[in-house]
């Protein structure tokens, strides 16, 4: 990759978007928080008291908004990779994406299906998960895997449009529109799932990449960021999260997520917000966000009994501190997995697949 061309900012090296990494760290923690709050009753055997946080307006499901932030970021980063000419062909592009996403995901899926809960999943379900095949109920062996399926389909669409057909990114939006039309016409579950408004977060990310340096945006970047943050946080008080996604979630979560990402990258680009986006802990969480996001749910199957049955933290620290401690432990384990497993594994796979990229 040393042959990467000069990027659009004018530096000779790859730009590290610290704002993006920071937001990723926060988003992964938010998703983990949502799962902790939903899982807590089961972890303590339904014995009250339950955390106050879980009944505070709609905070319990609020962490799900992290997915919308992930999708916006994904669109932004793909547009960035395209701008710097990371790969020259669709094949190389997909090799880079799969070798990044698949190793840890395959490991997690196989470990969960055959070690943690052996016999629970059919071989067909495991294969569907391993090959990112959408199922009608949008389920995967490892819970968060459903969003990776969406990511992978987005990568295919983006790669074909920018590297095979070499046409404007606007075509990504047109493909999403076509999915909507095909869903209406055929009622086929693939099109129905892929016409969910959440996919527009990908497209928004691409648009954000192309607009975040506009003078008007840069001038108002802080306001856009703060407004997005306020709107998203306000959703805690007025938006009931559920699994239906759709427009109901796109407006309270999707739109402010776009504003947050746009404001953040634009702020960073003009040198604002260094204190937020230079925070070392948030950056490490961002770097480890894939491991945190992917692995935290697997830990629900053994780890809680140590914390809640053996140590009994909820009995003397109270349910809210116990839930936060549980969350902090999951995040910390995710960071350790990132450095001990994810990074070496990715390095190994990259070395093995290097001939494919030359």
């Amino acid at each position, binding site marked *: *990759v*040393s042959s*990467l061309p000069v990027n659009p900012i004018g530096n000779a*090296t*790859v730009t*590290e*978007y610290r704002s*993006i*990494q920071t937001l990723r760290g926060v988003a992964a923690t938010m998703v983990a928080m949502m799962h902790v709050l939903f899982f807590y009753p089961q972890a303590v055997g339904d014995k009250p008291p339950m955390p106050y946080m879980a009944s505070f307006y709609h905070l319990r499901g609020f962490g799900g908004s992290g997915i919308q932030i992930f999708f916006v970021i*994904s669109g932004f*980063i*793909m547009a*960035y*990779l395209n701008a710097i000419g*990371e790969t020259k062909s669709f094949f190389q592009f997909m090799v*880079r*994406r799969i070798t*990044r*996403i698949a190793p840890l995901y395959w490991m997690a899926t196989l470990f969960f299906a055959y070690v943690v809960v052996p016999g629970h999943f059919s071989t067909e379900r495991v294969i569907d998960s391993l090959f990112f095949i959408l199922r009608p109920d949008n389920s995967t062996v490892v819970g968060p895997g459903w969003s990776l399926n969406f*990511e992978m389909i987005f990568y295919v669409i983006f790669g074909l449009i920018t590297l095979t057909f070499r046409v404007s990114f606007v075509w990504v939006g047109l493909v999403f529109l076509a999915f909507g039309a095909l869903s209406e016409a055929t009622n086929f579950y693939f099109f129905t799932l892929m016409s969910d408004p959440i996919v527009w977060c990908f497209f928004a990310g691409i648009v954000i990449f192309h607009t975040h340096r506009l003078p008007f945006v840069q001038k108002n970047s802080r306001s856009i960021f703060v407004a997005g943050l306020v709107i998203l946080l306000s959703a805690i008080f007025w938006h009931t999260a559920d699994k239906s996604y759709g427009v109901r979630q796109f407006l309270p979560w999707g739109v402010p997520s776009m504003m947050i990402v746009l404001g953040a990258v634009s702020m960073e680009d003009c040198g604002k917000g260094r204190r937020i986006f230079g925070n*070392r*802990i948030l950056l*490490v969480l*961002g*770097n480890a*966000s*894939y491991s945190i996001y992917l692995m935290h749910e697997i830990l629900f199957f053994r780890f809680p009994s140590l914390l809640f049955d*053996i*140590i*009994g*933290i909820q009995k*003397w*620290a109270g349910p809210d501190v116990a839930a936060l*401690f549980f969350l902090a*432990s999951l995040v*910390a384990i995710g*960071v*350790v997995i990132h*450095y001990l497993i994810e990074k070496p594994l*990715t*390095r190994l796979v*990259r070395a093995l697949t290097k001939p494919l990229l030359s």
Partner: protein
Amino acid sequence: MKILLTVALSVLGIAIVSLIIRYKTRQTQKETDEEKLDRMTW
């Protein structure tokens, strides 16, 4: 006893994660472009 165990585990966890952050922040500066991109793309 359990309180002590939890506190000890927390301190140990914080110490390990802090050490990793310290060590890796130093290492991050020596990263290749490919590794930098890997951290940002998933």
